[in-house]
């Protein structure tokens, strides 16, 4: 990262482009953050969930009498059988299925909530769970999505396929017939958990007199939660208030409305005036929060002798778990995989069938990078393999196929439109930073010695970010997530309050929104405060997912701030009797063109707007505020290149990362330090997935990796120093920004597998890469 976090060409005025001090850090780093766990209310009670110990079982009886006799309030599946979570999509092949709030007819995965106990504290609540007797009749479990099911998860889908779609462009059969080389691989990627530092959490409180529900929820998507909870509970949406206070990481797993969330709200309505709190522990998180990335790719690619990619045919199976995740549907991973598989490469002939298959495992959902860490791995494996077979340098073969700026706008075979094209530039810069030629020479020198062999791996990717209404239409859900709202209020003292629909799980959105608004109006960054995460305050925001908030929430903040600026200028023009077009605002002062000294302060204008109506010019209303929506319609592709050099211990199979480089196009980097932090964090998460993290079920559907002793998260000791570089090509949106929240996760699988192929000539077909798996390939 750069020394002070700011690029050398940082602007001299305004806050955008500079690593200003983050607004949220004072409280977060001094222990004054306020998370759902910190919510303490009078009469509060604690909830624990009884979870199915079976992967698949009929529930033949639930006996809560002993628990009730001991004084516990107990809820079972029958209590909420009238409510079901039913993720909807208009895609023709999609099979709609219900997810119960608490399982009552059968349990479909180990860890599924079956009953809930309310007690004075969590210890007693867990004591109460031991008094609830559930009778199960075990059913055969299906764990692997590409095995034949013996007993379907849902009767509506006898083959367990909840969704299937074929992407088709050009003619793959003609192209394969003309190809000089056809490469075929079967690739399997590993199932992950999101594992934010703060697990899921909720506090629900029902005010019976007002008929109003308040739900403190550690969510990425408070407005979606409000909308869904109101619908599921039959409440007017205005009577539901969702508050997402500080949230400690999300990564997608908190962009889902879970049965536990709905249960908590339904239980609260049964216990008016008593706040009910549930804080997920790590064991529950690994069992029952959404999983991801359990995929198989059957890949076939045709190349010309010169290494041109002629055709790709793929069959992608995604294990979507027991339920179609609410509200995103079982399509979230397969559709993303099929839409983005060809990545930043030119391709005319493409046939790809994707399917989401239900199994008796925890539901799969959105997780940072959604499907792309797997699809990039699959695509890059084609190039690595073809390069070896054709005797072409692995870098060169990519150069011959990558989309260039001249190709823009480039319509991908899935009909998504790439607006970037700057992949080769990212690659060049990354190879420079890596010291490619020096490493190739060292690699050569080591051949034939006892020293550990060196390998170099590369991945290029196009990360689709900030999806507007046209780009977010893929899963055809009954809503489009292309827009966000923002409200900007200038207060009577000239300071500004921003009430934004964005949410933050640590990404520094308060800072970014303040920078955008401060610069758009022309007031100091310090004079802007941002309030987020409360649906009673913000008009609307879909929340954090798809690397959308800088683009969409940021665009809304920018446009809204400009509207307020216009109001300030109109009022100022009247007050100082100048032409509005001659006015500009800088650092909280209003200047007239040609005058070196300010004519009036923004604070004085604001005071007039609220307190001195006697000074209001003719035709100007009191107040200085505005609310605007923004939708970019399309998305903004962020180009990225990752390269790394590794060395391998031939005896133990361990790999050591010598150097890791990432170069991305963030468009205009609004806060360079936050951008670098996003990239570094997502690469670390990608490396964790490539080398350590793996959720494993046994054949009966029991999770074998139920604690962090078995599910290995990378720590700082496992993550190498990295070099992060940037290219900057502003996107076509008000701020010129491209999302950077997820791209880093897309590279590591492909980079490390490619580097091992380069070092040892071995093919990595199954992830994660472990010493044991490398050792096995070397025997």
């Amino acid at each position, binding site marked *: 990262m750069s020394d002070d976090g700011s690029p050398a060409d940082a602007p001299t005025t305004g806050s955008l482009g500079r690593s200003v001090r983050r607004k949220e850090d004072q409280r977060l780093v001094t222990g004054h953050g306020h998370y759902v766990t910190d919510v303490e209310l009078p009469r509060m009670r604690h909830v624990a969930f009884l979870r199915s110990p079976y992967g698949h079982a009929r529930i033949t009886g639930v006996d809560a009498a002993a628990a009730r006799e001991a004084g516990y309030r107990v809820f079972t599946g029958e209590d909420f059988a009238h409510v079901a979570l039913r993720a909807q999509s208009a895609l023709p092949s999609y099979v709609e299925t219900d997810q119960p709030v608490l399982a009552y007819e059968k349990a479909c995965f180990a860890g599924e909530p079956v009953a809930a106990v309310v007690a004075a504290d969590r210890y007693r609540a867990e004591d109460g769970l031991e008094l609830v007797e559930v009778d199960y009749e075990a059913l055969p479990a299906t764990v692997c999505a590409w095995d034949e099911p013996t007993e379907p998860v849902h009767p509506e889908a006898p083959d367990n396929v909840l969704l299937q779609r074929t992407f088709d462009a050009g003619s793959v059969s003609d192209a394969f017939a003309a190809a000089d080389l056809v490469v075929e691989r079967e690739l399997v990627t590993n199932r992950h958990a999101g594992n934010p530092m703060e697990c899921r959490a909720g506090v629900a409180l029902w005010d019976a007199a007002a008929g109003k529900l308040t739900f403190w929820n550690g969510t990425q998507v408070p407005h979606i939660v409000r909308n869904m909870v109101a619908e599921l509970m039959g409440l007017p949406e205005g009577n539901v208030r969702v508050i997402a206070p500080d949230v400690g990481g999300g990564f997608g797993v908190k962009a889902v409305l879970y049965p536990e969330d709905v249960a908590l709200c339904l239980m609260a309505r049964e216990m008016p005036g008593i706040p009910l709190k549930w804080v997920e522990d790590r064991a529950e998180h690994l069992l029952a929060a959404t999983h991801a990335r359990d995929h198989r790719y059957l890949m076939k690619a045709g190349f010309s002798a010169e290494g041109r990619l002629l055709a790709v045919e793929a069959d992608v199976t995604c294990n979507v778990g027991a339920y179609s995740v609410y509200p995103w549907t079982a399509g979230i991973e397969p559709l993303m995989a099929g839409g983005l598989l060809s990545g930043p490469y030119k391709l005319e002939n493409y046939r790809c069938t994707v399917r989401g298959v239900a199994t008796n495992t925890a539901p799969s959902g959105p997780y940072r990078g959604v499907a792309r860490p797997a699809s990039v791995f699959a695509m890059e494996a084609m190039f690595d393999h073809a390069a070896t077979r054709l005797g072409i340098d692995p870098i060169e073969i990519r150069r011959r196929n990558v989309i260039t700026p001249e190709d823009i706008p480039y319509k991908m075979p899935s009909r998504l439109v790439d607006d970037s094209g700057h992949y080769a530039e990212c690659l060049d810069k990354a190879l420079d930073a890596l010291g490619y030629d020096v490493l190739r020479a060292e690699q050569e020198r080591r051949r034939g010695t006892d020293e550990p062999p060196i390998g170099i791996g590369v991945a290029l990717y196009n990360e689709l970010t900030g999806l507007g209404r046209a780009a977010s239409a893929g899963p055809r859900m009954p809503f489009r997530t292309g827009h966000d709202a923002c409200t900007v209020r200038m207060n009577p003292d000239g300071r500004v309050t921003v009430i934004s629909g964005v949410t933050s799980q640590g990404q520094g959105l308060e800072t970014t929104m303040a920078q955008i608004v401060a610069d758009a109006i022309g007031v100091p960054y310090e004079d802007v405060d941002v309030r987020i995460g409360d649906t009673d305050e913000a008009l609307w925001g879909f929340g954090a997912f798809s690397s959308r908030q800088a683009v969409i929430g940021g665009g809304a903040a920018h446009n809204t701030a400009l509207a307020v600026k216009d109001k300030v200028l109109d009022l100022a023009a009247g007050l100082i009797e100048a032409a509005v077009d001659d006015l500009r605002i800088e650092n909280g002062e209003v200047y007239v063109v040609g005058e070196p000294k300010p004519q009036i302060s923004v604070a004085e204008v604001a005071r007039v707007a609220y307190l001195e109506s006697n000074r209001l010019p003719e035709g100007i209303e009191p107040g200085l505020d505005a609310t605007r929506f923004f939708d970019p319609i399309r998305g903004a592709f962020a180009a990225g290149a990752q390269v790394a050099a590794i060395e391998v211990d031939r005896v133990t199979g361990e790999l050591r990362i010598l150097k890791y480089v990432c170069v991305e196009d963030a468009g205009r980097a609004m806060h360079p330090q936050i951008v670098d932090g996003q990239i570094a964090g997502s690469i670390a998460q990608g490396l964790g997935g490539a080398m350590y993290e793996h959720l494993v079920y046994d054949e009966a559907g029991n999770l074998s990796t139920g604690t962090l002793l078995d599910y290995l998260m*990378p720590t700082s*000791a496992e993550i190498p120093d990295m070099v992060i570089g940037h290219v900057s090509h502003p996107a076509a949106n008000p701020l010129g920004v491209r999302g950077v929240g997820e791209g880093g996760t897309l590279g590591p699988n492909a980079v490390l597998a490619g580097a091992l192929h380069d070092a040892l000539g071995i093919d990595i077909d199954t992830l994660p890469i472990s010493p044991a798996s490398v050792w096995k390939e070397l025997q």
Partner: protein
Amino acid sequence: MKCAPFDYVRASSVEEVVKVLAESDGDGKILAGGQSLVPVLALRMARPSVLVDVNRIPGLGAIRPSGDAVEVGALVRHSRLVEQTNHPLLAEAARWIGHTAIRARGTAGGSVAHADPSAELPVVAVGTGATATVAGPSGVRSVAAEDLFLSALVTSLDEDEMITGLRFPLPTRWGFAEFARRHGDFALVTAVVTELGGAVRITLGGVASVPQRAAHAEQVLADGGTAREAARAAADEIDPTADLHGSAPFRRAIAGEMVRRALAQAGIGQE
């Protein structure tokens, strides 16, 4: 993930510990550093009726050189083993235990009594021929490390006995090598090489239910074999089981390599 109810006694003497444990009819547990016990309590995999907190008992926290050995009190924390210079092998082994927070609380007596076959200190105990001082209702006895570990998490201690101290002989030469998935994880394989009174011991952790001497490999060295030959013998004589992190053949190969590295560090059997 909250523990079931239990009674709590803060003991002020070893005699009190033994008395409470005896009265609990085998249902009591000693709480020292808590680094292994508390997680299994939280998972409700252990449900003792009473926890006897030994942390305030005086006199159990000393490290003392004693002739050709070092005496370590049961309550000595791993972080102090790292810092001490009297027993370099112990210091090296303790560096591999968990992370800073775990080493700050975890105790020598607790780790040995817990008898995790992948933990570092049990391997060092067997590798150095350590003895444990054990207090029970009928007084104090000494137990050799080799007689202490019966199987995974099972020792020959009676339910009303407590380890009060450990005596680790000082090897004339030693080597320590460990292989784990991540820094601070329990070992897939630990190899400890010690030279005691001219004889070389090779002890492996993580390959069986208790720390295991590689007798054939030791014999190879005694017969003048090289480290490589001994490593191969060690790999051949063990019978490791597969788990999520590696197959049996992989563990066997890693064990051989760790023995080779530990012997190299000790300067034994080098060509």
